[in-house]
């Protein structure tokens, strides 16, 4: 019945979204912050002429100057350059790390929500077990046993992170599967895979995408924390976490070595949170 109605409703809906998305101050400022950071990180070679690992023992622990925008550390390495390349390491790992738990959690969450019964029971007990461990405890323990490096970080974040997506998607599917269009698809004899993939998932995945924004923030914090402890990105590759750990030794005399990389983390987190908040307002205007 509603094929015609859908055709007329859909463009209107899309248009109203189009008309409003740039009026979301949170979303716009978040996008601007992240765009600038991504540009600086990607264009790092254009924005600095220093190799982030090049030592200059004649110019150690210097303040900001025309040669060194943000000064140098105890080995005479350029802080501005290390900040840019460090962001590269952290952000690229965080952006990849968010994908695996998203996919795994979405699949397991839809299985639990759609089929219920044993699938639901098993998957949700698994969720309970993972949630029983504090986030950082399990991540640090896993990276410890697997050995430091990006691969271990991906595995640890996936093992710990999928539960939030599974919970969100399961909850959404429990509501969505009672709705008429799904009942119609079921009585039309469509296969479960087709119903889940073509009809349910596109309608429930927005919540998971909104959550993914704050999840990237969590992942960045986890990576930076691991690197601060010496378990994450290994020196000499710069990263915001090992920069803070390095600056810690000069806290009283050169506090900027600790403060600057931390501020980079905070600003990146703020940008992503703003995008998440803006997306949430945009995609669920009713709430």
């Amino acid at each position, binding site marked *: 019945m509603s094929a015609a109605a859908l055709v007329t409703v859909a463009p209107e809906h899309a248009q109203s979204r189009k008309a409003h998305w740039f009026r979301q101050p949170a979303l716009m400022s978040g996008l601007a912050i992240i765009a600038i950071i991504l540009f600086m990180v990607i264009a790092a070679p254009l924005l600095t002429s220093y190799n982030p690992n090049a030592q200059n023992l004649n110019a150690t622990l210097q303040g900001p100057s025309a040669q060194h925008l943000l000064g140098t550390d105890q080995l005479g390495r350029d802080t501005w350059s290390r900040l840019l390349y460090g962001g590269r390491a952290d952000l690229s790992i965080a952006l990849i790390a968010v994908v695996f738990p998203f996919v795994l959690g979405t699949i397991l969450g839809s299985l639990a929500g759609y089929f219920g019964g044993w699938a639901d029971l098993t998957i949700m007990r698994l969720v309970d077990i993972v949630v029983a*461990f504090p986030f950082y405890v399990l991540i640090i323990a896993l990276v410890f046993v697997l050995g430091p490096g990006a691969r271990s970080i991906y595995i640890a974040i996936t093992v710990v992170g999928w539960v939030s997506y599974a919970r969100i998607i399961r909850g959404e599917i429990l509501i969505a599967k009672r709705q008429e269009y799904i009942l119609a698809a079921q009585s039309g004899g469509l296969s479960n895979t087709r119903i889940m993939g073509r009809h349910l998932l596109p309608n429930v995945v927005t919540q998971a995408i909104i959550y993914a924004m704050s999840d990237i923030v969590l992942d960045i914090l986890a990576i930076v924390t691991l690197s601060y402890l010496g378990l994450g990105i290994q020196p000499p590759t710069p990263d915001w976490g090992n920069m803070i750990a390095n600056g810690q030794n000069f806290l009283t005399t050169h506090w900027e070595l600790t403060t600057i990389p931390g501020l980079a983390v905070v600003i990146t987190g703020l940008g992503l949170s703003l995008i998440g908040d803006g997306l949430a307002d945009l995609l669920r205007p009713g709430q």
Partner: protein
Amino acid sequence: MGRMSFVFRRLLLLVPVAVGVTIIVFFMVHLIPGDPARTILGIHATPHAIAILHREWGLNRPLLSQYWLFIDRLLHGDLGQSLIYGQSAAALILGRLPATLWLIIYSAVLAVIISVPLAMLAASRRNGIRDHAVRVVPLLGLGMPAFWVGLLLQLEFALTLHIFPVTGYGTGIGGHLRSMFLPSLTVAIALSPIVIRSLRASMLGVLGADYITTARSKGIPGRRLFVRHVLRNAVIPAVTVLGINIGFLIGGTLIVENVFAIPGIGDLMINSIFQRDFPVVQGVTLVFGVLVVLVNLLTDVAYAALDPRVRFDR
């Protein structure tokens, strides 16, 4: 369904989670690439030392029997022997537990002290300037690495202003309160954004309820209305939010203990990681898991005792 049966069913649900927690901790050994004994003891380990570790963990037995051995020891309070300190991991952890519990409780109290006024400020005028200002705080707070906040607090209040000690646990209750203030504040700052957000939302929900309209129409002044009617009903959700985020709270202490050199189990875990003291890492992971499960249980039971509307229907 009565409250007793709620508690009973909640306890039953604990069994699979507890078993799962032990399975994960047990399998940590098997995630180590290669021969775990050789990896842990390092390249200079003698075949004799490796053989001892193999025997201790029963690594040459079938998996199921290894797990059984692990559980059997666990039930006797045996978490294995520390490879570094030469004492049992259980004794080591038990000795470090008080400092961590102090930090957890102190942080929770500070988080409530920070969050409740800010959430009230935000909820009192929805979409006002104060509301927008308070709503930015969580956005900033969520992206701050806890160890970094700790370092900055250390720099400002300990190294520059000399108000608090830089590190340590202090002696006596007064000493603990003073020494643990900065670390607890660090954890509280990390936790507050989450609490402020949900508290603001639940206060706005309460403000929209019929009984508030009734109270307003009776002419109860704004301040009293807020404290007597709104706050009371909004605090229960805040406690629940703290309970749900207990994993976050407890996990936060891990790194903060390290920054402030507090002799708790978090500091023990990180030091043991660097010394590759596997039994201790394993033991601390297990204790952290048990702590979270217990606190979650307590939150649920307290909630059921406080709020007569709670029914078990999941």
